[in-house]
């Protein structure tokens, strides 16, 4: 600190300001422009919000939304504290009963508080990742098959074209009934609502990955295929040495599209089916209809956007890690 101040003291004022503006100009495209965009957005939001009056009060501006961020965080902390208190009370009670009567089998009951905003985020994230994973495990191999074999493509393509445009929400009632009918167990590892949501997400995550993988695989450089033929590579090494490396960019394009769509669909499915998650949070707040509801919904909207963005960045880093061409600029 003292070092900096000595430097500042001995540096003429003009050059100091030049240094600061120089830094700003240099980092302008990467740092300054997004900040300007963000500030503009906040200003417009703030201005427009004031002039919208709804039956639930004034439309929330950035300040009210920020307030609710704090409120939601506090609710979560309080909920956790009361849950901890509940469990310690239960443990004490059980210990006392066991001390009185050694044959007593203690009953352990779960805390029944409503899930908080953070709980709902976690549920949604977990659901979308499981649904996406199931879809990818199916879509990538089928896509590779379609890319490699024209007959497989011709056979499967009509199905892809038929089911691709279907909104997954149209599937939701069917999925719900099928899950209720088939997923019967006394002690289920996953709740039915989770299975329904995850399966619905899978249904819509399938198509972009499948189609992009098929296109990527079918567009492999013909010379490389000839190399493989001349070397008489086994089908497995043909797949691992030629097919997968050359189609990785397209496969990841598909995966990223799938994950983005899956995340959007999940929120809608949760709203519609009242399955736990961010969608349910939004719907509950809407039904609740208090003066703070709109601000709380806005927090959820921004959270959904931020999580979608982070998910995409994560996929991008995975792509960077597995891609052979490190110099390639990925967007």
């Amino acid at each position, binding site marked *: 600190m003292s070092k900096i101040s000595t430097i500042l003291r001995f540096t003429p004022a003009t050059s100091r300001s030049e240094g600061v503006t120089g830094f700003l100009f240099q980092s302008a495209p990467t740092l300054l422009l997004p900040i300007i965009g963000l500030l503009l957005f906040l200003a417009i939001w703030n201005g427009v919000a004031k002039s919208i009056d709804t039956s639930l009060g004034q439309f929330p501006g950035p300040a009210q939304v920020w307030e609710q961020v704090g409120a939601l965080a506090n609710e979560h902390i309080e909920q956790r504290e009361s849950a901890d208190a509940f469990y310690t009370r239960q443990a004490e009670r059980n210990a006392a009963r066991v001390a009185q009567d050694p044959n007593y089998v203690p009953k352990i009951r779960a805390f029944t508080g409503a899930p908080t905003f953070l709980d709902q985020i976690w549920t949604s994230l977990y659901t979308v990742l499981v649904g996406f994973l199931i879809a990818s495990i199916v879509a990538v191999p089928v896509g590779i098959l379609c890319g490699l074999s024209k007959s497989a493509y011709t056979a499967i393509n009509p199905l892809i074209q038929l089911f691709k445009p279907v909104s997954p929400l149209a599937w939701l009632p069917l999925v719900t009934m099928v899950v209720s009918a088939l997923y019967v167990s006394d002690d289920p590892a996953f709740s039915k609502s989770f299975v329904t949501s995850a399966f619905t997400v899978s249904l819509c995550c399938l198509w972009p990955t499948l189609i992009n993988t098929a296109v990527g695989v079918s567009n492999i450089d013909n010379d490389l295929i*000839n190399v493989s033929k001349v*070397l008489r590579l086994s089908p497995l090494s043909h797949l691992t*040495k030629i097919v997968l*490396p050359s189609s990785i960019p397209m496969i990841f394009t598909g995966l990223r599209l799938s994950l983005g769509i899956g995340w959007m669909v999940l929120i809608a499915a949760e709203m519609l089916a009242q399955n736990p998650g961010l969608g349910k949070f939004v719907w509950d707040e809407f039904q609740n209809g208090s003066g703070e509801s709109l601000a709380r919904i806005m927090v959820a909207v921004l959270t959904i956007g931020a999580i979608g963005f982070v998910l995409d960045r994560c996929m991008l880093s995975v792509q960077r890690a597995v891609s052979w061409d490190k110099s390639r600029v990925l967007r």
Partner: protein
Amino acid sequence: MSTKHLELAQVGIDFPTPKGPFRALENVNLKIEKGEFVSLIGHSGCGKSTVLNIIAGLHQATTGGVILDGSEVNSPGPERAVVFQNHSLLPWLSVYKNVELAVKSTMQGKSKSEMREWILHNLALVHMSHALDKFPNEISGGMKQRVGIARALAMEPKVLLMDEPFGALDALTRAHLQDSLMEIHASLGNTVIMITHDVDEAVLLSDRIVMMNNGPAATVGEILDIALPRPRDRLVLADSKQYNHYRHEVLTFLYDKQKKVETVSSHGKSTLKQSANGVSSEKKDKSNSDAA
């Protein structure tokens, strides 16, 4: 030495088109001896590459066939290694790994150290020992083609097939690689069949030059024996009467006897074909973005 190391007999090939089969080659007969260096030369579109692909087994002849050491060629295989025009190295593998892939698939049952030695030996042959861990996009075009040659040599092919191997290189790099190739051919004695557009290259490298007629239904026009003593030195030959006589023969064949008539219609056709390709690739792109 058998006189029938490699034999093409009555080879013809039809390509299916919407208007019915198109006869690209007809009645191609060629006998090649072991260790011989043969060049195929002709105007573009005369079917040189098709001949090479048939020998490689990448295309199937419609009529006739190819016999290598007494057995018929039906499918591609490492005993007929191909050096492709645009190197065709796997961009995700290092120089060493590219050659290793070829060695692993052709020398099964050898120990790891033997394989490693063989890979290094072949990369040394093409003077690429210094770039083992480089990736194809980190080395020059000439170097890539050297690695392509090393990969082909590492398969220990009976016949080395080269499809315009130096076509995409600048003149100086090309000369270097030609010298390397002559060196390798002298020491290993592989049978080499090379496609070229370059008259000098053909005369300098070959024992025989096979000159092809123009298509459709292209076939072997003339065969010219090049009786220049080896080793050949490009500087000495540049001033040699015999060398220039051979050059003249090939040029006469190409530009006098087989004058390529670039008619407006054929030119239009080729551009049309190109634009059709362009459209289809655009379509593909579009379908990608649709999928997106």
